[in-house]
Structures are given as C-alpha cells and as structure tokens.
C-alpha cells in the first residue's frame, strides 16, 4: 500500500519523511510551529502528515511511537519494549572510575571546594567533561562561587563518602609526605603541573 503511494510521489508522504527525520534527531519534543518552520511547510499540512505518522508509529504496530506531549511531538519507545529499554539504560554496576574521573575526584576530595580552572591547572588538561561526568554521577556537586562573580566551585557529596566508605572527608588517606615537605599541597601540585608543561 505504501509502496504504491510512493510510485506517484505523494507530497504529504515526502513531508512525512522530513518530519520523521526531524523527530529522530530532536533532543526535545518539537512544537507544531517548530516542525513547520524546519520543514518549510505550512502548519496545516504538517498536522496532516503528523496524523499519517501517528497511524504508522503507534503501539502494537511499531517499536517507535509518536507521542504528543506538552511541549509538542516526540518519538518514544513502545511500551512492549519497556523491559528491553530498561536493560539498555540500567547499565551494570561499574567497577572502576576512568583515570580522568579518578584524578579529578581526588583533586576535589583533597582540595575542595575547588573550581574547574583550578582542577585544570593541577591536572594539566581541561576539566569540564570530567567534572560534568562526576556531577552527573552525583559524586561531586556545586558548592557556591569563589567570591562574587567568581568561578563555580565543587566539592564531594555524601554519595561520594558512601561509595568510598568514608564517614567524612577527614577519613581520606593522609598525604603527609606531600603536604609536609612543600607545606601546601595545592601549591605543590600546581608547581609540579607547571613544570610538567602540560
């Protein structure tokens, strides 16, 4: 049936394909006007095409379901695939943190509250993605700014203490051999990083 429609290219069908493309790349639900603007077509025709798609992308017929939500239209997974989607999303317990995550976490744990520029200076590489990852995991959280208009600073969270089995930060293993010799741990780290030239 669909095949015969396409032999004589139906303009609504072509619009429907454009809408499929827009919906599959969208990071948020798309309002009718957004879809019309992107498709460079008028809203009425877009609604007609959406109705066609709603018939095609529905529970029982497809694993992709076109959903109308508050913000507009979006694709979602069919309910019959809920278990599979849960298995995909709920990843197995991760054994170890990446090197970048561990280093960043160590800096925040020992020196926090500390800003991203400070972390970057000590590690010698931009800290943005590593910090974002730790925030997403809930191991690190924002802790105000360094003064008015200063950089956002970060510190470890109660979840961090649970994961590392610490009652509080004072239970972190001592680094007296580092702190003792240079006086200030942070100064020493920054000094070494500067000489690493990284």
């Amino acid at each position: 049936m669909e095949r015969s429609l396409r032999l004589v290219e139906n303009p609504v069908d072509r619009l429907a394909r454009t809408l499929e493309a827009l919906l599959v790349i969208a990071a948020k639900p798309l309002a009718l006007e957004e879809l019309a603007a992107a498709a460079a077509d008028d809203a009425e025709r877009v609604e007609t095409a959406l109705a066609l798609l709603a018939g095609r992308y529905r529970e029982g017929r497809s694993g992709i379901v076109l959903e109308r939500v508050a913000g507009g239209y979006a694709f979602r997974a069919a309910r019959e695939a809920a278990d599979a989607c849960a298995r995909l999303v709920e990843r197995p317990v991760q054994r170890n943190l990446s090197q970048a995550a561990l280093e960043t976490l160590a800096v925040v744990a020992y020196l926090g509250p500390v800003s991203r520029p400070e972390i970057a200076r000590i590690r010698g590489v931009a800290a943005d993605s590593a910090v974002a990852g730790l925030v997403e995991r809930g191991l690190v959280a924002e802790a105000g700014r360094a003064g008015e208009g200063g950089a956002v600073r970060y510190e470890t969270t109660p979840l961090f203490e649970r994961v590392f089995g610490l009652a509080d930060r004072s239970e972190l293993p001592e680094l007296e051999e580092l702190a003792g010799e240079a006086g200030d741990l942070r100064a020493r780290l920054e000094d070494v990083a500067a000489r690493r030239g990284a």
Partner: protein
Amino acid sequence: MAVAVRELPLDLDAFEGPFDLLLTLVLREELDLADVDVAGVVLAFVERLEERAALDLEACGEFLVLVAALLELKARGLFPGEEVDLEDLDPEEAAGELAERLAAYRRFRAAAGWLEERLETESERFFRTGPAPLAPVPLRPLAAQDPAALAAALRALAAEPPDVSLGHLVLSYPPVSRFLDRFRALVRGRGRFSFDREVTGLTRPEQIVAFLALLELRKRGEVALGQAAPFEPITVWSAASAS
C-alpha cells in the same frame, strides 16, 4: 593568508631565489652550505612573518623543521674535526632523515585533507548526540571504591614529571642581535669562552638563536671556533687575537 615557506624569497650573498630552490641545491650538493647565511634565511622569514597580522603557527613549524635540518647539516660541515665517522656525517643521510620527517608530516596532512573532504561529502548526516527526549534517565551505579585510589591519584599528580623537553615547541625567540652583542663582549673581555657553558640553561630556541649568532660572527670573521671532536664543547675566541 599563510606564509608560503617554500616560496620564501631569499636574497643572500651566496644565493638568490626561493627557499625550496636553496634546499634543492643544498641537497644536490651544488651549493656549499658553509657559504649560506642561515641567519639571513631566518631574518627573511621573520620579516615575512612581521608583515602578517596573525602568527602563522603552521608556517613557523615547517620553517623551524627546515632550518633546524639546515643548521644541523651546516654544523657538521663547519666542524669536521679530525677523523669522524663518515656514516654519522653523511649529508645524504641527514638529508634523507629530513625528507623522511617531512614525508611523515605530509602523510598526516594528506590524512587531514581526506578528513576534510569526508566532512564535505558527509555534510548531510544529521543525528541526535544526546539522550532521546522521552527516554528513561540512565543510571550509572558505581561499585564500592577504595579511598587509597584517590591518594594514589593525587600522589601521581604531585610526582616529579619525567624529563620531557618541550623546548622545541616554544616559538618565541630572542633577537640574534642580543647574542651578537653578548658574544662580542665576552670575546673582548676574556679573549675566549666556551659556547656550551654560555648556552647551558637556555631554552632550545634560545640556543638555536645563540648558535645562529655564533655562525654570524664567524662568517664576519670576528671570531674563530674550535672543537675537539663533533659534539664536544665549542670554544670561541677572537679572530683578531688568533691572527
């Protein structure tokens, strides 16, 4: 606009023409490198750079590689010493090494060109990079961790860095004149000095510029140079006092 290093026009005592022709003649041994004023080449390039608003790092990189190779060839020619292992000094080999390095770089330039074309042909690719709007929120549970790993990570960050010289990456270098003045003063004052001692502790680019100054002084006949063997310390003394 990029500075075309290979087409850099040169007007030297021994040679007039584009830089790549100079290289060709040197590689074919039709031009004695000892007669080539390398400082003049550097000056021509620096002048060319100054005409541009922005620093062209790419051109600087290519230029430094070429000039470093020229200098190495020239240095070997200038200090033949007594009996030297010919294999080590074969300019053919040195030139081969230079060509190899440039070829490696050119391969990656070609790869970059391929990537650029690919971007063009794949410019119609659109896909979502983040989570889907109505997707379940992912959980990332983490196993219990050992706090000792944190201490180890911080200790590693505080560890003395391995000795990696990044000196060749620094593109700012002092004027040749500074070393010309300094070396003239040293020769006037002491009569002779050890070049190696003078440049110890300087950055690589500073050492290169200092060496250019030394070659310049020798070319002008102001100083004489001596060296017990290749790669041994270089002694500099006043050409006037020697004669």
